C-alpha cells in the first residue's frame, strides 16, 4: 500500500497512522517519523520562529515524492509506505511531514523512514523559509539544509 500526498492544509498524523496500519494486515512493525515546525532552539539569538513556509513546484514535487516512495519500496522489504508533506505557511508545533513504513521486520521499516526523510530533507522539490519574531520586523529568511543533512543523504549512495 503506497500513499503519497502533498497537503495544502494542516493535518493530524495520528489520523493517518491508524488507517495506514490497519491497511497492512500481517505486519510486524510500523515506523513513523513526524516532523514539526520547531519554535527555535532556546538559546537561539535570532528569537523564536513565528512561521515557516514551504513552497513547491507543482509539476515536479508530488511526482518526485512518488518516485522516492517507489525507490524506498524497491530498496527495503516493506508492506506499505505512507508519505505526507505539507506546503504553505505553518506555525510552530504544526506537522510538516509524516513518513510511515510498515514491514514484516523492524529493520526495513526503520531504514525506509530514515531513507525517505533524508531525501525529503535535501533532495525533494521543496523550498523552505522562516520568519522570526525579533529579526528586522519579521523578515522571511530562506533555510538551506544543514551540512549534517547532506552527509546523511550520502549514506544511501
Amino acid at each position, binding site marked *: 500500500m503506497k500513499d503519497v500526498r502533498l497537503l495544502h492544509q494542516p493535518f493530524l498524523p495520528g489520523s493517518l497512522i491508524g488507517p495506514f496500519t490497519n491497511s497492512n494486515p500481517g505486519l510486524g512493525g510500523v515506523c513513523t517519523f513526524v516532523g514539526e515546525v520547531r519554535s527555535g532552539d532556546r538559546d537561539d539569538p535570532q528569537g523564536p520562529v513565528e512561521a515557516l513556509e514551504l513552497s513547491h513546484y507543482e509539476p515536479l514535487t508530488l511526482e518526485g515524492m512518488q518516485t522516492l516512495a517507489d525507490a524506498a519500496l524497491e530498496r527495503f522489504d516493506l508492506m506499505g509506505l505512507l508519505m505526507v508533506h505539507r506546503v504553505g505557511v505553518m506555525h510552530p508545533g504544526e506537522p510538516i511531514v509524516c513518513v510511515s513504513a510498515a514491514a514484516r521486520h523492524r529493520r526495513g521499516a526503520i531504514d525506509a523512514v530514515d531513507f525517505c526523510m533524508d531525501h*525529503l530533507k535535501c533532495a525533494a522539490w521543496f523550498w523552505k523559509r522562516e520568519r522570526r519574531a525579533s529579526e528586522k520586523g519579521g523578515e522571511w529568511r530562506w533555510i538551506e539544509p544543514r551540512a549534517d543533512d547532506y552527509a546523511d543523504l550520502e549514506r544511501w549512495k
Partner: protein
Amino acid sequence: MAVTVLFLGPLRDLAGEPSRKVTAPLDWAGLLQAVGPEVAAQLGEERVNVACAGRVLGDKTALQAKDGDEVALLPPVSGG
C-alpha cells in the same frame, strides 16, 4: 509567442518577481540574458537546476524552450 520563466524559492527574491514572460524560443544564452546578472550568476552554479515543460534538464545549458513552455529555475532545495 512567449516562454514563462518561473523563479522558485530564494531566486524569486533575487528576481523581484515570481515569473517573467520572455520571447520564444529561448536557449541558455537567452535565459542568462533575460533573468538579469544576479539570477544569471546563480544559474551558473551546479546546485541550481532548470526544468523545461515539467522536466528537469540533465544539461541545463542545452535548454531549448519553445512558445508556451514554462522554464522553472530551481535553486537548492530544503524540505522536511
